[in-house]
């Protein structure tokens, strides 16, 4: 295991972590504030990627596609909120899980109908093509740095909004006690809708940014959704700070585990079992951490103050 590979994988892990954060931030807010388990959050990410593809086909300009796709992702999120999710806030988790499960089936099939089942590609923008030389024998693509940079910028923006603005204050209050916020005269439905649209846009943005480095295909949101759930459970439901730290943790651990677990095992076992067990342990690693967190600190590593993980946790 060479140093350059290690650095590259750390950067890849950081990049995965930041994308995960963008998806998880919306999920944790929606869950924390509205006590709503939204399995369909992953398809927002997928839709973002598809919208980016469609917009790129239309305009041929990456920056313009980002803007168009973001607007489309927001519109889609709000449309889902108005037609379906709004009726689910008061329901129990089982009904939420199933209703949103149906939406996943629908939208996964929907994109297959519109764009076909074959993976699609979006070329990275010209300005961000090529790579930077970090040290001897270590090149890293500029576009991936752009992802890291925009992820960090958005995380900072989110932090400022949640910590210092009136809207952020209401969101935090909602995560602690939504009923009380409503009783104090805040239009909680409007707050819910804003949080929801915002979350959908963040997930959509993650999908847009990933489109040039991953292939865009139906069902691409399903795996990221599970990872995002892992992140919000580790971080503490409703906590943006927790989601940020947990996302980076999950991104780096998952990436490093997949690259180096086999080598680590080889230090104390025969090569052939290590080749079999290594990938298995690597892919289980983050779920093991999640199980440990749930067993030892069920409220997550950085729980939202006063938040009890919603109705389900407090009852």
């Amino acid at each position, binding site marked *: 295991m060479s140093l350059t590979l290690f650095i590259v994988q750390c950067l890849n892990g950081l990049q995965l972590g930041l994308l995960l954060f963008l998806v998880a931030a919306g999920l944790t807010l929606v869950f924390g504030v509205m006590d709503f388990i939204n399995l369909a959050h992953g398809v927002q990410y997928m839709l973002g990627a598809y919208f980016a593809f469609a917009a790129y086909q239309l305009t041929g300009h990456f920056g313009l596609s980002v803007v168009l796709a973001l607007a489309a992702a927001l519109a889609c999120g709000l449309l889902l909120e108005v037609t379906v999710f709004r009726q689910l806030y008061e329901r129990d*988790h*089982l009904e939420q*899980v*199933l209703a949103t499960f149906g939406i*996943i089936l629908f939208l996964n099939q929907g994109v297959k109908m519109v764009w076909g089942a074959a993976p699609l590609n979006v070329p990275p923008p010209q300005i961000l093509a090529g790579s930077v030389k970090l040290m001897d024998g270590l090149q890293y693509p500029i576009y991936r740095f752009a992802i890291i940079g925009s992820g960090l910028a958005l995380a900072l923006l989110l932090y400022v909004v949640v910590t210092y603005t009136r809207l952020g204050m209401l969101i935090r209050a909602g995560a602690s006690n939504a009923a009380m916020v409503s009783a104090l005269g805040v239009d909680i439905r409007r707050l819910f809708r804003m949080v929801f649209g915002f979350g959908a846009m963040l997930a959509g943005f993650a999908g847009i940014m990933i489109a040039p480095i991953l292939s865009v295909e139906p069902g691409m949101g399903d795996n990221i959704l599970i990872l995002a759930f892992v992140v919000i459970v580790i971080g503490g439901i409703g906590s943006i700070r927790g989601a940020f730290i947990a996302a980076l943790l999950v991104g780096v651990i998952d990436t490093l585990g997949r690259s180096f677990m086999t080598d680590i095992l080889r230090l104390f076992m025969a090569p052939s079992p290590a080749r079999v067990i290594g*990938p298995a342990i690597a892919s289980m690693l983050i779920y093991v951490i999640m199980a440990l967190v749930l067993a030892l600190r*069920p409220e997550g590593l950085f729980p939202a103050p006063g938040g009890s993980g*919603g*109705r389900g946790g407090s*009852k």
Partner: protein
Amino acid sequence: MNAAMNHASPSVTGTPSQARSANTWIVAVALLLALAILPPLSTVMGGKYLLVIGERVMIFAIAALALDLIVGFGAMISMGHAASLGVGAYAAGILASHGYDQAEIGLPAALLASLVFSLATGAIAVRTKGAYFIMITLAFGQMAYFVATSLAPYGGDDGLTLAHRSTVLGAAHLKNETIFFYGMLACLAGTWVLLRAVIASRFGRVLRGLKQNPERMRAIGFNPYPYLLTAYCLAGTIGGLAGFLLLNQAEFVAPAYMSWQRSGEILVIVLVGGVGTLQGALLGAVAYLTAEEVLSHWTEHWKIVFGPLITLTALYARGGLMRFLRWGGGRT
């Protein structure tokens, strides 16, 4: 969480589930009888097509019955139930690939493997509540899934193909589709009877009490943990039975059996049929797989219709199909 109870109309809430199921067991018996006439019917119609659908219905009905025990009576919403099927199927499949292809070995191994898996995961999962339980079972399901994909000696991602179905008493009885079908029907009927007995027992009453009001149950001296864990393990073990049957039916096992989408499907079956009724799980399996079959014949993009159907069921059909049957289609 009492939410599910609150959604029902007052007349339903007022009736204990025992009295409710007294009227509706006919539904289950009727469905079992309907399944029983499938083999002669398919002989008349020619082709195994009906049999294969019936077999799949029964496998998913067994899995859904088990899930209804923990969702409907224990308020534990598991999003990882498919993992117990997969673990059972892999246990028997791996043994068969080493030449131990007898059902007398494969079936107990499948049950044991699923039991051990549920015990290990349940010991942690049952400590959590509500949404956290959903997530942790989801995570354990994913763990099982990824372990299966990395089982390179047993097919990895591509899955493991069975050379032939398990032998029973040294002969290949299960190759005879009719015998296999009726064997499966016996398993389904047995599971249903067993779970009804469990629900009606003292254990079942404690379980239902824990769902309705855990604090009160604790106050009168019940520690919820062993009860919930036992129910979880029983559901997992029955999942192993379904897994063993699925392995033999498809003569194949793949990691996809354990995907969280599959767990979601089983949960949908329970909800469509009616949570907390047992009979509903049977009805749901028939409805779900028939709808899947009909729609997929109609269009390649059947999920575009199927998805919204599930969403609408969750939104508007509280109580599932059993509720409609109970009131003769009318609302109260």
